[in-house]
């Protein structure tokens, strides 16, 4: 089963940049998931969001909100595991490292 784990962060508030220690721990964690054979792809998410919305055929594009920060404020991991519970366990381990905030888990189905 594949799951997308992602964290978008809160781009309306300035957040403290991650400490070098946290960056190192996240790196170690990523390496651990790779060695566990579950990590298919991963990447960081930038701070700005562009929304494209269709309302009754009318397309609207909204940018922002933008913040001054150039930091990554989120990230995603595509993982392949045995069950949703296993995905949850990995997400908990990640969340313990990065602290307060939300990580979301959604199953990914083949096209």
């Amino acid at each position, binding site marked *: 089963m594949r799951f997308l784990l992602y964290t978008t962060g809160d781009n309306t508030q300035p957040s403290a940049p991650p400490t070098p220690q946290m960056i190192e721990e996240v790196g170690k964690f990523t390496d651990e998931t790779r*060695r*566990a*054979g579950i990590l298919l792809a991963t990447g960081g998410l930038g701070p700005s969001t562009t929304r494209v919305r269709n309302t009754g055929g009318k397309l609207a594009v909204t940018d922002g909100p933008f913040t001054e920060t150039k930091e990554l404020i989120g990230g995603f991991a595509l993982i*392949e595991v*045995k069950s949703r*519970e*296993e995905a949850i*366990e990995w997400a908990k381990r990640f969340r*313990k490292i990065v602290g307060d905030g939300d990580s979301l888990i959604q199953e990914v189905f083949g*096209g």
Partner: protein
Amino acid sequence: MTDPDAHRAIDAVWRIESPKLIAGLTRIVRDVGLAEDLAQDALVAALEQWPESGVPAKPGAWLMATAKHRAIDRLRRDERLERKHQEIGREMEVQEGQQDGDDLLRLMFISCHPILAPEARVALTLRLLASLTTEEIARAFLVPVSTIAQRIVRAKRTLTEARVPFDVPTGPELDARLSSVLQVIYLVFNEGYSATAGDDLLRVGLCEDALRLGRVLAGLAPKEPEVHGLVALMEIQASRSRARVGPSGEMVLLLDQDRGRWDQLLIRRGLASLERAEQLGGALGPYGLQAAIAACHARARTAAETDWARIVALYDALAEITPSAVIELNRAVAVAMAFGPAAGLELVDAIASEPSLRTYHFLPSVRGDLLAKLGRHDEARAEFERAASLTQNARERELLLDRAAASSREDTPS
């Protein structure tokens, strides 16, 4: 947390932690069977305590500490284990974490040990390294639970009695032992990919288990080209899983597949693994060559773009290092695609009387295909029917009978 929720959460922790746990315990007690018992004891303790206390901050360390306590309890009760007492005391001093990778690799070598029958290696590896339950293994292989349970018990006993050392082989032994590990992983993958019996063409779970084991092994033995070759082969094969099965569950052949449904992420991963295998130097081994063949298909955007001449050359190389009638048959298919059905049929006819192919349904199925392309429909129909009678897979039989019927229509003058 309600109990069922808690149990599912513990089950997830177990899947992640148990291979490392069993590997670490095997290093300490030097006995896979005893190590697994101790790990199970720790799991039972977790199931008793965690629903109340919550999952501890470091569940892996908790399980290991609990298992070690059980080990000491058992030693006190069981004098036969006395000789292990000192070893355990010494091994327990070893810093946690440092040994995880090495232990896991040793555990893979032990559970794929050539002293065990191939099906026992498969069952033990799925149990110890993929954390599958005996029931799950039995279901995947369509055999009774008791058969798998017995296979695992016997395998552990054999390893204990033979006092198989818990180490990573070196020198010339390494190649043979590694190839046994690769073979086990590939057997699991193939059982999932082209289920040899039953109605499901794919048992996706087994493919994922094999891929996971392969990816883990690639991390543990990163300098072994054949490990990357096998991973590349499995990633690329798995990329076609969805396209291989039609809307009503029927099998779709490679050249008829909708390539838009191929999983580009797995293809990219597979091509990257193949590149790693090539960069490690030397000629590609059997898995690397098969991956290179799979890559020729993966790179072609349409069936017509396939570089068949290169595939023929790769089969030539493969036939040279691992000569077999099956590879000859595959080579004949590639030759037919590159140089025409008549050239292919000539090669097929040359191996048609091979005893090893007597009940191999691909032989009549390939022969039927080439005869049909040459307009010899009556002969083609007979071959497809023969192939249908030989396959154990219901989906494949359907496809072959369809082709037989199509040949028979072609043959009827209108």
